[in-house]
């Protein structure tokens, strides 16, 4: 049986949006897929050795708020200093309690399963990113690199 292929483009750098690419990539690898994830723009944050991902309630009406907080702190209240840090801490706490893996853990599982992680070279140059801040074992490439694999993929996702 020919190996199926999954190609993902990860464009977001927040705690909540870090999950879909790593969950799908690790699971697909466990199912026998060959997987590549191309990280571009804010998605590059997901490749940092030391992750400092946050989640924001700002401009996010779909975020479930504990204790009816959305009623006490409507839209502008979400812009209060410390609100983002607080929501991030609460989200991390909730994930831990519910047995949801940390982003670091899922990322490690992806690397163990030989998921290829590719950092967008253009983004690295654009934001003058320090490549020594990124984890080991990643590759650097551009759009053509992505298409080499994506063009033969069975599933291609933009996240």
């Amino acid at each position, binding site marked *: 049986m020919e190996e199926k292929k999954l190609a993902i483009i990860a464009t977001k750098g927040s705690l909540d949006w870090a999950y879909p690419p790593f969950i799908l990539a*690790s699971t697909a690898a*466990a*199912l*026998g897929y060959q997987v590549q994830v191309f990280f571009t723009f804010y998605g590059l944050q997901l490749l940092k050795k030391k992750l400092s991902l946050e989640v924001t309630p700002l401009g996010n009406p779909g975020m479930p708020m504990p204790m009816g907080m959305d009623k006490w702190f409507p839209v502008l209240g979400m812009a209060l200093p410390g609100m983002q840090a607080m929501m991030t801490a609460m989200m991390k706490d909730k994930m831990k309690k519910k*047995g949801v*893996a940390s982003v670091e853990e899922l990322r490690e*599982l992806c690397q163990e399963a030989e998921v290829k992680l590719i950092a967008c070279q253009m983004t690295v140059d654009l934001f003058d990113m320090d490549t020594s801040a990124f984890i080991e074992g990643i590759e650097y490439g551009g759009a053509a690199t992505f298409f080499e694999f994506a063009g033969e993929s069975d599933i291609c996702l933009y996240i």
Partner: protein
Amino acid sequence: MSAFDQELDASGLNCPLPILRAKKTLASLSSGQVLHIIATDPGSVKDFDAFAKQTGNELIESREEGGKFHFLIKKA
């Protein structure tokens, strides 16, 4: 419950960890050996069925007992 060669307790873990741990443990077994997985994630029932179908490993048993889900998977 039928016999098994190895047990994996994935209680308290959420998607996709039970599947990932199972895959890893299966890799250490030989063909024909049976892995017993215990999970509490309700989503794991459908997930292990899908995992077996896609990987060719056989799901011999899937049942709920005392609020936990038990799976027997035979390595292909």
